[in-house]
Every structure is written in C-alpha cells, then in structure tokens.
C-alpha cells in the first residue's frame, strides 16, 4: 500500500519532468541498444564463420606446402614446392585416420564457350574431392578414377560458371568448353554453395582431374595442396598429428627442424577465426559498455540535480509526514523507473538496429539472449546504484533544513 503510493508519487514526478527524464533515458537507451547491437554483430559473424566453415566440411584437413604462417586465408602456397604427388600417395596408403584424400592443383584462366567468356579458377583434384568438400552434383556425374589416370579433358563446373558461359539456359552437361584454350567436356554441374565466410564464391570453379590440370594447364609436378578428411570430426586433431608425422618422415626433417608444410584441421581454422571475431566482439562491447556507463552517470547526474532542485519539495513532503525512507524509496523508484524504461526502450532500439543491420547492410547478426539480460541488468544496477546516493542524501535531510533550502 505504502509502496504503491510511493510508486505513484515517483511516477508523477517523472511525468512532471518529461523532457529531463527523456534526456536522462537517452543515455541508457543508447547504451543498452549499442551493447545489444554490437554483441549481435559479434555473435552473428562468429556464428556465420562457424557455420560456413563447417559447411565446407568439418572433418576437412588441408595440407599446404611451406611453414605455418598462421595466416588464415592464405593462397596456394606460393612458390613453395615441397608438396609432391609422392607425398600424397604415401599419405593415401599410410594415414589410417583419413577417409578421403585428394591432391589439389589450381590455376586461374578464362572459361570460354563460343562468344561467352568468364575468368575462373580450375581445380585439379580426384573424385574424393566431392566427399571432402561435402558437395554434390546437381546434374551429370563426377569424373572417375580411370579418367584421372588417363588425364581426360573432362570438367565439372560450378553454377556461377554455368550462369556466365551458358547464359541461354541450355544444359551444360555434354557441352564443350575451353579453359585457357584447352577444350574440356562438361560432364557435371556442382550444386550451389554460395559465398563462403571470406566472401569467396564457391560456385565459381571448374573441377577437372588433377592429372589433366597438372600436365595440360599448369605444367607442374608439385601440388598446391592436399585435401583430406578425417574419418570423424573427433579424429581430426589426431589425424593432423598423424599426417604431420608421415610428412616429416617423407621430407626427412630432423627433430630440430620446423615443418616445411602446414597441416590444418577445420576445427583449428574455426577457432582461429572465432578468436579473431571474439576480439572484435570484446572491442565492440567495451565501447558499448562505456556508453552504458556514461548513461549511468547521466542518471546519477540528473538524480543529483533533481534532489538539489527539489529540496524544498522534499522538506514539504517531510513536513506533512513523509519519512526519510519514503523519500529514499521515492527517489530510488524514480531512478529505477527511468533506468528500466530506458532499458526497455534500449532493448527495443537495439533489436531494431540489429534487424536493420541484417536487412539493409547484409551483416550477419545473432541476438544473444544473454546480451539482453546483461545489458538490462547493468542498466537496472546503474539506476539503483547511481540513484541511491542522491536519494540517500535527500532522505537524511532535516525537514526544516530542506524547507529553508534556496
């Protein structure tokens, strides 16, 4: 009953000072909204990285020539030629924790069909590639081991290539294309995968037997990469160790020498990326928290001014029977109402901003429920904390001192 009255009193005071209240709230609103939006951006990019990486095959293991430079999005190993077909064959025979394995050679070039012309990348692989990349064909078929052996000029192409060199909508399967002027017969089309995390179009590829690509397109003996997949996701780390050991023996490396190749599992890649985006999230949240803190200081400031300004009113309330606790609770309720209303508006604004960012800026976002809870709690706590001090001061006044205050 008494609390209800105090709630009424506090509410009335807020309504009487609409503009000031709104300005105070603005700090809280912006603080809470930015915490939520920033966390949503952070979480969103983390999630999209994770999902698109595991989309690429979560068991996947990549072996590149050259020492580990910890750069996540490295090219094809540059000029380093330490990875050979022989390495691949030994791995294929000896690495028991791998279920699929393919050599990879790749090179850029023009795909031509009649007058249609499209720059793309050709990947020379074996049929295991589809299993490793977890990708299917939407039409036609994959080339066979026999075709690899005979270095046949057959190719499987991605949707982007189809769209650009077969713009009339004809079925590409069975058609001839030319890649860097070498004719290839299209025997299949990959299902669409869209862009990966790094913004790379996964459908802008031409896949052909690695033998063909090595000999006819690139004229090289070494491999750009070996891709494999572990027998299970749990075995990925173990498989990395196994592959490393086999390759070290192959390359006759001494115990003191560093690896001249890099073996990475997807898990590792995911964590590298996650930690990068985590850093980003922490940074964003730090900035947002500062604005939340400033919002809290705003509340304290306004409550402080409010108490000063309303000292006479406090005196009157005491003169007609308001107890110190009543005054304290009234001002505390005011502070809490301001911060909670600000918090609610902040959550709404933060969620709208998130939707906006997702829709119009095409940034992946993911609103974490905990971010709502945390920012809301922080703003309620700042409200109570920053409201308490001036309220405490007000309640300790003597009625006559307060009444005489000018």
């Amino acid at each position, binding site marked *: 009953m008494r609390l209800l009255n105090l709630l009424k009193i506090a509410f*009335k005071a807020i309504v009487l000072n609409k503009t000031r209240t709104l300005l105070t709230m603005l700090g809280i609103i912006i603080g809470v909204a930015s915490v939520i939006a920033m966390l949503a951006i952070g979480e969103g990019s983390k999630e999209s990285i994770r999902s698109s990486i595991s989309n690429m095959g979560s068991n996947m293991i990549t072996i590149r020539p050259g020492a580990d430079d910890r750069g996540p999005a490295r090219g094809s190993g540059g000029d380093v030629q330490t990875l050979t077909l022989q390495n691949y064959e030994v791995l294929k025979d000896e690495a028991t924790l791998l279920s699929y394995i393919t050599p990879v050679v790749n090179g850029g070039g023009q795909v031509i069909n009649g007058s249609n012309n499209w720059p793309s990348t050709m990947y020379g692989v074996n049929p295991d590639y589809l299993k490793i990349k977890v990708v299917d064909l939407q039409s036609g078929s994959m080339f066979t081991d026999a075709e690899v052996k005979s270095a046949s000029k057959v190719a499987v192409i991605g949707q982007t290539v189809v769209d650009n060199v077969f713009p009339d909508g004809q079925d590409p399967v069975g058609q001839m294309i030319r890649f860097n002027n070498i004719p290839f017969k299209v025997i299949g089309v990959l299902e669409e995968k869209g862009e990966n995390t790094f913004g790379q179009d996964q459908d802008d590829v031409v896949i052909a037997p690695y033998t063909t690509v090595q000999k006819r397109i690139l004229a090289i003996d070494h491999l750009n990469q070996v891709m494999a997949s572990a027998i299970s996701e749990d075995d990925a780390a173990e498989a990395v160790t196994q592959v490393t050991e086999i390759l070290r023996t192959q390359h006759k490396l001494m115990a003191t020498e560093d690896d001249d190749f890099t073996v990475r599992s997807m898990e590792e890649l995911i964590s590298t990326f996650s930690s990068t985006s985590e850093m980003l999230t922490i940074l964003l949240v730090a900035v947002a928290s500062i604005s939340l803190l400033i919002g809290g200081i705003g509340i304290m400031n306004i409550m402080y001014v409010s108490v000063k300004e309303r000292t006479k009113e406090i005196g009157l309330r005491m003169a007609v029977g308001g107890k110190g606790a009543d005054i304290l609770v009234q001002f505390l309720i005011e502070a809490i109402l301001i911060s909670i209303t600000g918090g609610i508006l902040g959550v709404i604004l933060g969620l709208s901003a998130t939707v906006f960012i997702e829709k119009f800026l095409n940034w992946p976002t993911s609103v974490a429920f905990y971010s709502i809870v945390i920012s809301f709690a922080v703003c309620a706590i700042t409200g109570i904390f920053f409201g308490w001090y001036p309220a405490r001061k007000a309640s300790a006044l003597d009625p006559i001192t307060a009444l005489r205050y000018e």
Partner: protein
Amino acid sequence: MTKEIIKIEDLKREFTMGTETVHALKGISFIINEGEFVTIMGSSGSGKSTMLNILGCLDQPTSGTYDIDNVSIKDLSRNELAAIRNEKIGFIFQSYNLLARTSAIENVELPLLYNSKVTSEERRERAIKALEMVGLGERLHHTPSQLSGGQQQRVAIARSLVNNPVMILADEATGNLDTRTSYEIMALFQELNQQGITITFVTHEPDIAAFSNRTIILKDGLIMQDYKNHKVLSASEQLAKLPKEEPVL
C-alpha cells in the same frame, strides 16, 4: 477537564554558526489547551518561526521539554516524529509550499499518501471534503499557477486539515495576502476553531491577533506577554465592514 494539546517547558533553541551562537529561544514555557486559538506575535527575529517549527516537530529544541497531545517528543525517532507530523499536526507556511504543476486535489491528498491506513478512495473523498470546506470545491483540478495567492493558501489550509489534525500551526499564513483576503482566511480559521480545532497562528499584525482568543508576545527569545483576549472580533463581520472595492472605470 481541558486537554493539553501543547505543553512546553523551558524550551531553548540555539544555533551555532561557526564560533558564534545565536540564542533564538531562551527558555519558553506555556500550555495551549484544546480548542484555543492562539496568536504569537513579536518583532522580526524574536523567535516566532523558530518556536513554531519546534511545535510542528520540524525542528528539535536544544533543551527543554515538549509534549504534544500528552506525548513527549523528546525521545521520538525521526520516523515517529514524521508520524506525529502526519497524524497530529497541520502546518501552514507563509509561502504556501504547494507542489508546482500539481492539481489542488493532489496537493491536498499529499499528507494522506504517507498514511498507509487511508485507502485511495477515502483519500480522494477527504481531499474533496477539505477543499469544499475552504470554499474551493469548484477548483479541484486547478494547479497552483492557475490560482490566486489567497486560493493557494486555502489549498494549503485544506492540506493541513485533511489529516484531521489535533492542531493547526500557521506561520504568517496571511503575510503574503491583502487585508480583504487575510480577513477571509481568518474567518475560515475562526470557523475551523469553532469546530474544535486548536490553532496556533504566528502574525505580525495586531488586527489579525484580534481575531484570536489568546495572544503570546515574544521578544528576543522570551515571552514578554501572554494574555487572554476577552473581546474576540468576528473576522466575517470585519470583512463586511471593509470598504467595497472601487469599481474599475
């Protein structure tokens, strides 16, 4: 037997300001019985407000005793004093002290908001009744800025009445008002006094004191005179005798 509403004995109040001590009250004793209408007079700085603030439990004496309605306030806590102010005392200020931008009825309801025994319907009812008593039944929802000084003071009086206090304390309640309005307010006080409410009224003006049945005159923190007024004037009659306001041409 008459009931003692106020009983003070050797009341002293000192203010210390740095090294200086101001002796505002130097030992005052008197008793005010139920139903009395007492005016307190004295020159400026004689200690009238200081004394009234103590009587209203807004301030504490430095020494001496004060019993209100037979309760000694000496040993009461801050909260108990607040309850006394809420339930036993109606205080009226020279400067009205109404809440700005707040309607008359809400201003009058204020003391009841701090009394948890009063329900919200009862609160509204009593506030309306109090405002009707002071003749503002038609002005319930006007805010102070929409009321004249006299009307604002009436709202303040209604606020002091709403808790059914045992006494009303007024510090120069007519000090900001013209003669006519002052007389109107005094007529109202006389009416309330007739209904049995004890009134203690601080004023500068002897003509106002003539409406009370007892006058205490302070000088330099001491009682100089304390006398019964045997020829109490009726404020409403005096009001009728005032020259009519000249019509504005």
